[in-house]
């Protein structure tokens, strides 16, 4: 079985304490793998650590413990190793307008990567192919333009072209379509799918939008307060969710006819992670248990094991039979 394109093993990232608040466990033990040619969606509320995890996957954030592996080999953080690694894993950001230097035209923005990695031979051809792969046809018409002359969708395509110019094998996208118009959203998602089929690219897409997972993801992982609580094939997780948090997320989606489970309380705080199962203070299933039920102490006291990287699984004490 070939090594996954990108993998996190027992990854922990803790930010130092600030102003009287404890250390923030943004990522609190995560195993997650993105197979070759596979698209994985990582879904979670804001503040659950998904953006930190995405940045760790491209080597922008050093893990406190655990490791990030690229095609099986652990990522070293010496400047040379990181630079070589950064050629093959590319990052997409949410705000396309902000992700482009206003003083750089499209040609320079796309040529930035190759120039940094010394791929100067045939630079114009490389930029041209990247632009057309990203759907900006005819490329010559866009090369001299500046970011403020482009629409949101076109700006995101320039960023994608900038990534493709380095012939990456994995794309890590942090909310790639969240700030785009609804109509343009589908176009960019379809582009990511096309790149998977035409270039065999793998992709980790981080988002809060379950619809996006249904649109393009092969596998889905749901993250809560720094840890993955459920993962598996998109059809299983989205249609037959087993973790109460996933069920709650799906139930409140507009347009579904399921009766909505509206969780109480405020979004989780990574500096104060509850004991036992970290979701129990907001969990509807835990609240439904009557006070005498023995399993309550499980939820409040016993920590849950970290899910393995690939096998579909659920992190909850109140699940009867294992995943189908």
């Amino acid at each position: 079985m070939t090594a996954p394109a990108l993998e996190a093993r027992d990854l922990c990232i803790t930010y130092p304490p600030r102003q009287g608040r404890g250390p923030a466990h943004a990522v609190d033990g995560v195993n997650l793998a993105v197979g070759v040619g596979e698209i994985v969606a990582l879904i979670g509320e804001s503040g659950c650590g998904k953006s930190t995890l995405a940045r760790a996957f491209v080597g922008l954030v050093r893990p406190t413990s655990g490791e990030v592996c690229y095609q099986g080999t652990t990522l070293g953080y010496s400047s040379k190793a990181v630079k070589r690694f950064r050629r093959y894993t590319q990052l997409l950001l949410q705000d396309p307008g902000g992700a482009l230097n206003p003083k750089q035209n499209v040609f320079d923005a796309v040529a930035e990567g190759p120039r940094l990695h010394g791929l100067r031979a045939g630079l114009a051809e490389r930029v041209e192919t990247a632009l057309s792969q990203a759907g900006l046809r005819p490329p010559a018409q866009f090369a001299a333009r500046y970011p403020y002359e482009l629409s949101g969708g076109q700006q995101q395509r320039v960023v994608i072209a900038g990534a493709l110019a380095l012939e990456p094998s994995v794309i890590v996208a942090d909310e790639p379509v969240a700030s785009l118009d609804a109509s343009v959203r589908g176009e960019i998602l379809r582009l990511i799918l096309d790149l998977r089929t035409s270039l065999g690219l793998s992709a980790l897409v981080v988002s809060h939008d379950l619809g996006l997972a249904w649109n393009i993801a092969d596998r889905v992982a749901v993250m809560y307060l720094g840890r993955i609580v459920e993962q598996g094939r998109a059809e299983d997780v989205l249609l037959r969710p087993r973790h109460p948090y996933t069920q709650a997320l799906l139930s409140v989606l507009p347009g579904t006819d399921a009766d909505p489970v509206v969780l109480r309380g405020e979004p989780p705080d990574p500096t104060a992670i509850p004991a036992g199962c970290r979701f129990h203070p907001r969990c509807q299933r835990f609240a439904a248990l009557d006070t005498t039920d023995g399993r309550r102490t499980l939820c409040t006291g016993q920590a849950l094991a970290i899910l393995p990287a690939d096998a579909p699984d659920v992190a909850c004490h109140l699940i009867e039979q294992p995943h189908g």
Partner: protein
Amino acid sequence: MSALTAPPRIGRARRFAGQFFRMPTAIAGVAILGVFTIAALTAPLYIHSSDLDVTQATGGQLAPPSRHYPLGTDQPGRSVLLLLIWGARASLAIGVIATLLAVVLGSAIGLLAGHYQRWLGRGLMHLTDWFIAVPSLPLAISLAAVLGQGATSITIAIAITSWTATARLIRAQTLTVEARPFIERARALGAGNVQIMVRHVLPNVAPLILVSTTLTVAGAILAETTLTFLGLGNPTEVSWGTMINEAYTGSAVSRGAWWYLLPPGIAIVVVVLGFTMTGRAIEHILDPRMATR
């Protein structure tokens, strides 16, 4: 095969020039600077040392403006107009040189303080804040007094006291630029610190450096004239500050000889305005907000 070639960058310069020369303040500013610079540079052609020499003065004492002396004469009888033109040389030279020193130093410190957040950045930031707490004129006076009278000591004094303003400004702008996502994208592409500063931060901070330069020159000229007025300039050198100083110490003020007192002051105001208006016009066009709209 590829129809694509790296597009030229001159387009931007032409676009900037087009906008710049349509703004009234820009045209006025550049016109003023042009007139003064040309006058100052060509001065040696039509002003001979005799005109400036007190011993060979030909006009009457503090004579009012006349056909021969359009701006009247000073105490020893020299033509105020010629003194004024020659005085421009000192003020412009000291102002510009002091500013170049200050802006280069200030921009470097501002850029580094903004980019390297950790100890280097905080260290430079604290250095700037401590330095800013010291009032500039008393410091400049002390420096000039100790270094002895003359243009070089004034230039050094002004440079040392005006770099902090630029440093604070560039640091603030660097922080805003570094907060933009394209810096993180550049880092993810593999750019190192130097590449990020040179290729991404500097071009976005350059407009502010340009604007801050014009404003620093304006401030430097005001400082130079103040220092020379207080007697720290080279008494033998003719400059606007000394002209006003002589008007003050001499009897011009008490005898109400306005034609000896007004011209140097008005010249200073006009030159300083020239620099500020040019700076404001450049800033208006290169304003980052304008670029991204």
